[in-house]
């Protein structure tokens, strides 16, 4: 019964939520499109609990992120192929920026870390696999809110983190945390972007 109760509550609250959103929509011909999309979302919300009955677990959120990523990739490819966009580097920078934003929001929503930097390495134009991600360097920081007060006897240590060929950046932190959480995040991201785990580097910096 608890399962059905939760299901009904979720559906009703989503319907209330959608009604509220409908007030916000400007009174125009966009209304139809937005109604279609909110309808799709409602179907998703209704169907998601039913996936528990089939053996396969489907992570809907991850699917959506994956498809977003594919869309970004094909958009970047199309733009580079277009003659109008002679400045390939700007397009690639935009693409990398989009990916790092995605990773940032994914990690910050799913873990208790704050992403301070993401470096994305992408296959260049000459390769047939143009646009696929070859490597990721992610620097994480613990959230400052729940950290303990700094221990005065420990002096801050300067850590030199050199990434790739030409990135030589210095990060100030008290210590570097190496734990199994890093592996978990690595696994998630390698699933999401089809990058092998060896090519993902995650550095976690401790605040205290």
């Amino acid at each position, binding site marked *: 019964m608890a399962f059905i109760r*939760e299901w009904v*509550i*979720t559906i009703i*609250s*989503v319907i209330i*939520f959608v009604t*509220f*959103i409908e007030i*916000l*929509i*400007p009174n*125009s*011909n*966009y209304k139809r*499109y*937005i109604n*279609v*999309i*909110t309808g*799709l*979302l409602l*179907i*998703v*919300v209704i*169907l*998601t609990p*039913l*996936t528990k009955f*089939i053996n*396969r677990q*489907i992570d*809907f*959120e991850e*699917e*959506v*992120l994956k*498809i*977003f990523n594919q*869309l970004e990739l094909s958009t970047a490819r199309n733009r580079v192929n277009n003659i109008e966009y002679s400045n390939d580097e700007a397009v690639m920078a935009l693409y990398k920026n989009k990916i790092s934003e995605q990773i940032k*929001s994914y990690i910050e*929503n799913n873990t208790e870390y704050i992403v301070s930097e993401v470096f994305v390495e992408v296959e260049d134009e000459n390769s047939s696999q143009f646009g696929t991600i070859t490597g990721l360097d992610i620097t994480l920081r613990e959230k400052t809110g729940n950290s303990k007060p700094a221990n005065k006897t420990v002096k801050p240590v300067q850590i030199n983190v050199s990434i790739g060929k030409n990135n030589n950046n210095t990060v100030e932190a008290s210590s570097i945390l190496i734990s199994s959480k890093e592996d978990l995040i690595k696994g998630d991201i390698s699933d999401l972007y089809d990058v092998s785990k060896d090519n993902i580097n995650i550095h976690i910096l401790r605040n205290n």
Partner: protein
Amino acid sequence: MEIFQIVAIGLIAAILSVLIKNEKPEIGMYISLVAGVIIFLFIITRLQSVIGILSQLANKINIDSTYLSIILKIVGIAYIAEFGAQVCKDAGEGVMASKIEFAGKVLIMVMAVPILVSLTDLIINMVP
């Protein structure tokens, strides 16, 4: 009450642009554009707080943040495209306005594609 200020700005802009229209129609357009931007900026801070409350609500009930961000992005695209299109229509450039609306529709559809595809996947997986 903010509504008084907004209505006052709108009325003043309307009267000014009607007065000036006979002499210099292009300045009338500038006035309505600037008034539109001012009203938009006035209301955007309110909208921000409403959206903040909506996301709090969504956290309470079990909606994924992905859905929420998609819906809010779509509402944002609709608002901005609508605003741009209205400004163009006011200036008498109906063609430009319809181009902006077209771009807005395409962007909204791009946001919807991931949901559509994964929903189809879900349904295909569920049917034995």
